[in-house]
């Protein structure tokens, strides 16, 4: 990852995303941002706040509540020389645009025999934890990772919030970026000269030798906390941040497993048919004999995310549940 060569600044995930947007808009006239309330309102999560004043209405383009049409329009603009960034307020609403994403963005290149590229980035918020109930709290990144023809990235750190966008824009194919809404306020240090990062590889966020915790997105901070608590009990967990869910970097996962021989996967998607299930399946196929214990999964409960706080918290991965799964495994 980045080597810190410049003084660090204290910032947030939200601001890091905004820096990335600003840089992209400054750097390339083909870049523009569109979506619901990205302009006057400043972005539902205030990510694009101030950009309208800086770049104007043409490039910070408010759209009506027409997910299918404006995502499709992003695809059409990408077909025609632009580098659009389309913000879909939350992944829950992206289902209204699923036809465009799957049947056009992911498919046109192949269906045309490779004649067209769709250099489009779609950003959307994902995840639960703010008592927004079932229509605002689901995690669909695992679903999208099922689709050949798109790339799925899940920035979980300030560096990735700052650096993934430009790399995604330079990718000739459509990229969907999932921003877990609980991360927007994440505060930390970021190198003042932080810039584009690689989006091909998973990263070891914490080195360890006793077991491997594989996660991504909003579950990364929880997993790192669980790893700290394990360390207090002399259990040394390695934490892998997948970063990109499609295509999966299994090399990093399997290298870690070859060292630890134990694995817990933490994924905020529903357990059935989840990304965690896919990783488990690949481990079975590719590294079955490395395993000293069955893999465990900490996923969301099989329930639409409920409103009541205690129920919502019980439905999604938590430090305690990650910790419990890890302890069961090493005992």
């Amino acid at each position: 990852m980045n080597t810190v060569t410049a003084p660090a600044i204290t910032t947030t995930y939200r601001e890091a995303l905004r820096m990335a947007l600003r840089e992209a808009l400054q750097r390339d006239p083909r870049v523009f941002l569109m979506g619901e309330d990205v302009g006057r309102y400043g972005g539902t999560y205030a990510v694009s706040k101030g950009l309208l004043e800086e770049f104007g209405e043409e490039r910070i383009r408010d759209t009506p509540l027409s997910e299918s049409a404006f995502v499709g329009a992003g695809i059409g603009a990408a077909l025609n020389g632009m580098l659009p960034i389309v913000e879909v307020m939350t992944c829950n609403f992206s289902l209204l645009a699923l036809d465009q994403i799957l049947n056009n963005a992911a498919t046109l290149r192949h269906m045309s025999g490779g004649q067209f590229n769709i250099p489009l980035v779609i950003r959307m918020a994902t995840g639960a934890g703010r008592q927004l109930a079932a229509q605002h709290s689901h995690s669909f990144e695992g679903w999208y990772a099922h689709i050949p023809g798109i790339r799925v990235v899940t920035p979980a750190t300030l560096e990735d919030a700052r650096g993934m966008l430009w790399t995604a824009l330079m990718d000739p194919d459509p990229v969907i970026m999932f921003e877990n809404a609980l991360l927007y306020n994440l505060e930390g240090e970021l190198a003042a000269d932080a810039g584009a990062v690689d989006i091909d590889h998973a990263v070891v966020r914490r080195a360890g030798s006793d077991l491997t915790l594989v996660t991504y997105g909003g579950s990364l901070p929880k997993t790192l906390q669980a790893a700290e608590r394990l360390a207090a009990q002399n259990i040394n967990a390695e934490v892998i941040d997948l970063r990109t869910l499609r295509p999966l970097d299994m090399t990093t996962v399997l290298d870690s497993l070859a060292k630890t021989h134990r694995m817990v996967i933490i994924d905020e998607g529903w357990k059935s048919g989840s990304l965690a299930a896919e990783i488990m399946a690949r481990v079975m196929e590719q590294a079955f004999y490395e395993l000293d214990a069955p893999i465990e999964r900490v996923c969301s409960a099989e329930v639409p995310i409920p409103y009541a706080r205690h129920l919502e918290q019980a439905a999604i991965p938590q430090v305690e549940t990650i910790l419990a799964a890890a302890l069961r495994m090493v005992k």
Partner: protein
Amino acid sequence: MTPDPELARKLLHEMVRIRRFEEKSAELYSAGKIRGFLHLYIGEEAVATGVMQALQPEDAVFATYREHGHALARGLSAGAIMAEMYGKVEGCSRGRGGSMHLFDAAAKFYGGNAIVGGGLPLTVGYALAQKMQQRIGLAACFFGEGAIAEGEFHESMNLASLWNVPALFLCENNLYAMGTALERSEADTNLVEKAASYRIAGKSVDGMDVLAVLEAAQQAAQFVRAGNGPYFLEFRTYRFRAHSMFDPELYRSKAEVERWKQRCPIAGFSARAISEEWLTPETITAIEAEVAREIAQAVEFAEAGTWEPVEMLTRNVYTARVQPE
């Protein structure tokens, strides 16, 4: 509109070319050479022919799954289309698309979309990019009247009008969405009014009269090119054949089909061209002969084509960066 002999010849040639190509396709489908779904354009030839005559090379075209006629009229070779339907790598989409997904980047022909209404948002975005890059050239989108029931139609009309983009919306109203008649699917069957409700100017045109189509498309294209925003054209037309090759046509009467066949765009234009002395009977015979030769060559080309090696199965899902070709 009175065409000069050259234009009259061109229009008739294009319509005959589409008709004979489609007839051959039906034959090859029965012979098992073409598989999948096959939607024939027979009866609707005047629409694609007239519209394409009004478009320029810098314009982009988005089409439906009944798009052989659009592709031919846009200048894709009959051989590349036929090879595509054979599933050969020499096809215009390398055999990955088939009948419903004909593409050609050089011709700015953006397919062949088999999700009804799916091309409309793409057209709006393409046209927006034209405007943002201050390029000349409009984005034209064909769709059937069935698409008007889709939410994407309404979302796209609204966006196109709101953003004042250079888009030309071309509704081919052949009265049936598969087997569902327009009056059974729309509470209000006045389609031009629907566009007007989004403040999009529009007009309803006789889609069986190639000259009426051409004239309306020229005026509409001029309107769009002048920066007046999008324009909507409804072409009243009819498909003489079944929806696809699997359709027993239970939803319409033979008498109705026969009535429309009396208005065949090719027979009608031929007769008029002779009586008005735009064309001679000899010219019409010569057109038929030229077209027959072209189609025979297209079939030969498709027959001689090759199958893409199965080792190439996963190519072109991603660009080479991710998956080396």
